[in-house]
């Protein structure tokens, strides 16, 4: 007759396996590869992500500058077209008075800008605040053009025989 098995027999087998494992490990270098792997992963990730961020922010910044320049050019040309239209009516024979409003955007690519009229060089100089971009647009008039400096936004162009063409905000 088989004697009844005691629960302790299974427990003995478990204790023997644990005893064998403890016997192979030898101290301080245990688990080093896990830590090393973690540090390496972290470093490489940081380097890659930093590179990505620097490249992306540089790209966005360049694009913003380029877009600002293009928009200032378009805004300047629209204003020049308005000034030259007013000048054409003023230069035609007969007395005339003209007042025309050109609706320009108050900001370009999220930044404010100023418009300077330089009659000496027949130019409009548009300068944005941040990023600081300067665009020059030529404007030709037959009547006299008054020097002025206005902020971006709606701009009024006036002509009267005494003072010629003037740009005001």
């Amino acid at each position, binding site marked *: 007759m088989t004697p009844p098995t005691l629960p302790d027999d299974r427990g003995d087998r478990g204790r023997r396996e644990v005893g064998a494992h403890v016997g192979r490990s030898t101290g301080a270098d245990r688990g080093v590869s896990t830590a090393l792997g973690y540090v390496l992963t*972290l470093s490489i*990730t*940081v380097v890659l*992500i930093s590179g*990505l*961020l620097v490249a*992306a*922010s540089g*790209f*966005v910044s360049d*694009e*913003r500058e380029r*877009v600002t320049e*293009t*928009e200032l050019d*378009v*805004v300047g*040309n*629209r204003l020049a*077209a*308005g000034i030259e*239209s*007013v000048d*054409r*009516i003023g230069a*035609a*024979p*007969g*007395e*005339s*008075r*003209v*007042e*025309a*409003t*050109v*609706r320009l*955007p108050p900001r*370009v*690519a*999220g930044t404010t800008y100023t418009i300077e009229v330089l009659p000496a060089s027949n130019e409009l100089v548009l300068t944005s605040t941040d990023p600081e971009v300067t665009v020059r647009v030529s404007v030709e008039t037959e009547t006299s053009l008054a020097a002025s400096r206005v902020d971006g936004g709606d701009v009024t*162009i006036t002509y009267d025989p005494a003072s010629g063409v003037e740009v005001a905000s």
Partner: protein
Amino acid sequence: MADVTDAVERASDAADDLPRLGGDDRGQLMLVAALAIAVLLVGLALTLNTAIYTENLATRTTDTDLDGAVNHGGAVEAGAGTLLDEVNREGGTYGELADGFDETLGNWSDGAATLAAVRGAATDASYVDHADPVEGTRISQPDAARNFTDRNETADWTLASDVGVRGVRFNVSRDSLSTSNASSFHLVVDDETNAVETAVYRDSSRVFVAVEDGGGVETTCSVAADAGDYVTIDVADGRLNGTACDPLDAVHTDLDGSVTVSYRNAAEAEGTYELYVNETNATVFDATKYEPAGSGSSPVAQEALYAVTVSYVYESGETYVYRELRVAPGEVA
């Protein structure tokens, strides 16, 4: 003795929490980086949006509406010119003509303002009486069955000397015209440096207008005309029966300043004509050449306004234009 069991349990709970790296705290670097890149991408999207807006702005028409003002100015000039000649044809003293023109232009302006209001613009046109009109003379022949000779039937005669001329128009009977260029009716406009000679003749099916310019070069244009037809010639507008006749442009390009207007072989054309000169009737009227107005005979020299000054206002949302125009339709030289 104090019970320290709770304190020991709390200490052991805290010790359990400390070294745990797995779980909710992991991946923070990726999260922060992903957020930063997301922000950059949003910035890029906004920048691209600005670029698209810029292209949109660049392709818009200019919003000053000054072209509307210029168009209205053209309409005022053309309208006032037609009204001026209509008033001149009615006749009267210089004062009556100016008053008549003022009233007629006022009526025209009211009609034009109603039409302009449809396009969102307020307009007004008026006669400027502080700028004196140029008093002139209308020389005309209303009798379509008479030839172009003067009152005494002189065939080669001078209509006016050393004057400004405008609105030279003929309505010529095709049948009355000569079939030879050399002996045909000639209109000669001479500024003492150059002369432009316009001959009108016909063959069996067409009427020809031959213009000899200041350099002596002759060019011709023609129009089909059957027996019994009348042909209109507008010298200043360069039109023969309403179609363009480029050789007539020589009266603008080759002449300068005051001119002398004369007819040659005037018996070789029948019909009506009119022209305006910028000297008063008292100066131009010559009883040997002209009949007075209202006599019923031809040709007639009578008082007429040669040029007037009109002003107009054009106002829309963005634009205000006030302008004064000199109106002298069909001025030669």
